[in-house]
């Protein structure tokens, strides 16, 4: 019979746990014991250090042909509020961020129906022109699939062209939940979970690192979450290209999908803790404060988390969905939040190289 003690022994001996054990952990009612186990795994790996970076999000357009049902950000081209930034605006935002000490620009946007592939190359070039040291983390696997279609090129060639134009790495969005039956309800137009994984494999083969995510707290079961993590772990075994896993708490407020009142604090912490324990080949587990709120994100540092994301100037996607966190957090606030959790703040770059310890 599976017991918590047996799983804890296994984990502490350095062995990998299986899906049934991960499921058991999700159902384990001693939240603190789960937190302690996740914390011990994390501290064995990362000590008391907690990463953050100074970045800016640029969501260049909200016009999107995918129209995912859980999303409150997208507009069709003729809807009020639809926008597309000019390259001048993009440059201005990137320049401003760079001046304020940002080391990364995070670019994701809708699948715009009318832009040519060249626009995206120019977009990357525009940001890179601000400074060659500014890292451009851009385009989810979903956007890559779309750009390849626009370019009429296979994925590897598409990635090569983007790399040449300045693409530094990829964010982990668009993974949502891999389970096909749930995905069909959430985002029927979006590429499948398998396609997402296939593209990420090619991204890693192209020598690019990427992040990975999971949208949870909507229609999925806990078993779907574990299965999602299983597929990420298997690909990570093959490529080692994922830098971090970021569970994203579903924000129901302005979404078409009516599923509860959003995730609970206990569910958030449990999901992060299980991820830390199960994903033994991931160095970093991130609490994305935009979705979780600052309080839970800070508490998560005792539940296996070692990354608090960035200062995130002007995030729009989570906030359009009703996230009530502030739109930005200053470097001082993040440093203070980490310190007050009894941990050591370390500013990193996009590729998780340490820049400065506070």
């Amino acid at each position, binding site marked *: 019979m599976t017991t918590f003690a047996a799983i804890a022994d296994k984990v502490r001996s350095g062995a990998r746990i299986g899906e049934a054990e991960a499921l058991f952990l999700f159902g384990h*009612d001693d*939240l*603190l014991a789960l*937190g*302690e186990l996740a*914390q011990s795994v994390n501290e064995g790996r990362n000590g008391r250090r907690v990463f953050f970076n100074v970045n800016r999000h640029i969501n260049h357009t909200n016009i999107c042909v995918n129209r995912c049902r859980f999303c409150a950000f997208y507009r069709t081209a003729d809807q009020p509020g639809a926008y597309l930034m000019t390259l001048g605006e993009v440059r201005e935002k990137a320049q401003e961020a760079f001046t304020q000490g940002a080391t990364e620009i995070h670019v994701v946007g809708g699948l715009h129906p009318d832009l040519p592939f060249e626009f995206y190359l120019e977009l990357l070039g525009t940001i890179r022109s601000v400074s060659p040291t500014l890292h451009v983390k851009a385009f989810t696997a979903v956007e890559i699939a779309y750009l390849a279609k626009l370019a009429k090129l296979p994925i590897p060639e598409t990635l090569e062209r983007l790399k040449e134009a300045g693409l530094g790495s990829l964010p982990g969005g668009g993974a949502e939940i891999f389970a096909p039956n749930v995905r069909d309800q959430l985002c029927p137009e979006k590429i499948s979970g398998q396609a997402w994984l296939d593209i990420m494999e090619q991204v890693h083969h192209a020598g690019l690192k990427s992040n990975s995510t999971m949208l949870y707290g909507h229609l999925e079961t806990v078993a779907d979450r574990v299965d999602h993590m299983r597929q990420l772990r298997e690909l990570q075994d093959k490529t080692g290209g994922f830098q971090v896993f970021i569970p994203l708490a579903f924000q129901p407020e302005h979404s078409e999908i009516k599923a*509860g*009142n959003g995730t*609970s*604090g*206990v*569910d*958030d*912490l449990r999901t992060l803790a299980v991820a830390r324990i199960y994903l033994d080949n991931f160095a970093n587990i991130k609490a994305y404060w935009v979705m*979780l*709120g*600052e*309080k*839970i994100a*800070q*508490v998560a*540092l*005792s539940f296996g988390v070692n990354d608090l994301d960035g200062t995130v100037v002007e995030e729009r996607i989570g906030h359009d969905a009703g996230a009530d966190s502030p739109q930005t957090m200053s470097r001082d606030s993040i440093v*203070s*939040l980490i310190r*007050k*959790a*009894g941990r050591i703040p370390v500013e990193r770059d996009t590729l998780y190289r340490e820049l400065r310890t506070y």
Partner: protein
Amino acid sequence: MLKKITEKINEGEGVDAREALWLLNEGELLAVGRLADSIRRKLHPERCVSFVVDRNVNYTNVCESKCKFCAFYRDHGAADAYLLDTEVIMAKIAELVEQGGTQLLMQGGLHPGLDIGYFEKLFREIKVRFPGVQNHSLSPAEVTHIAQVSGLTMPETLARLKAAGLDSVPGGGAEILVDSVRAEISPKKIGWQGWAAVMREAARLGMSTTATMMFGSKERPEDIVEHLMRVRTLQEEGGSFTAFIPWTYQPGNTELGGGGATGVEYLKVLALSRIVLTNVPNLQASWVTQGAKLAQVALFFGANDLGGTMLEENVVAAAGCCFRMSREEMIELICGAGFTPVRRTTLYQALEQY
């Protein structure tokens, strides 16, 4: 140190101030939580989490105390100063009763024109019109103020309020029960001894009370510990505290400003409260100041109660912090943490299990 403290707790001994301070300053969040959780399990082995259906009625925002941490008060004669009409108050209570509420929490500023006669008349009428509602109102600062305005002693005032229908006294205005901190954040409010005197008298009169603490403003960790020790001593000496309720200073729109306590600090102080105050039966998590997510997590850090559903709340909202919670959300939150939700009375008698 942790080992020694754990042994002490396992043997049912109280921790001393030095140990409490160590837990606050040096203790790991989860380790402190684990100690608090073990005490919660001992005191409340049934795995229930309770709440009360209540309403705050803030009868006036006119206040002579002008505390620097407060965003609610107004000067007498200010454009947005108010005093609710008795009929408005009655309508609010009627609404509470319609929605199945059992607790009325009337609290207001220290208004220079309201004497004992005003409150006696008001409380009598509430008792006549709503005999099933627990009148859990005022606070030590208000009781002391009413005595001054009326030229009475505090014990006379409290006895008359009780006779008029005041059932129990909430422990608001405790802030930090250390006068050096009070001098900084609420110089015109009664000192800690004044607060304690009202609570002793209420207990002597057979009224139940609660105790609170507002932290995250100007206090030091030593002051938090001192506060907890003072509440513990008052309870030992015959206090009638049913619950302890720590919450965090909300800096929005206040003279004091600043940042306020973080989530980790809140959970640690909450857990420490459970560890020190083993003689106070219930510990409330403050969803009003922490939000639903952290309040739920707080159930693993010593809390066994979520306070009221608060059909109305104005004081914390004035500082820009306005979480809301329905009875259904409260039940879902408790179930989601693996506990059984129980609706209770002010005196912690179970009314309904969900």
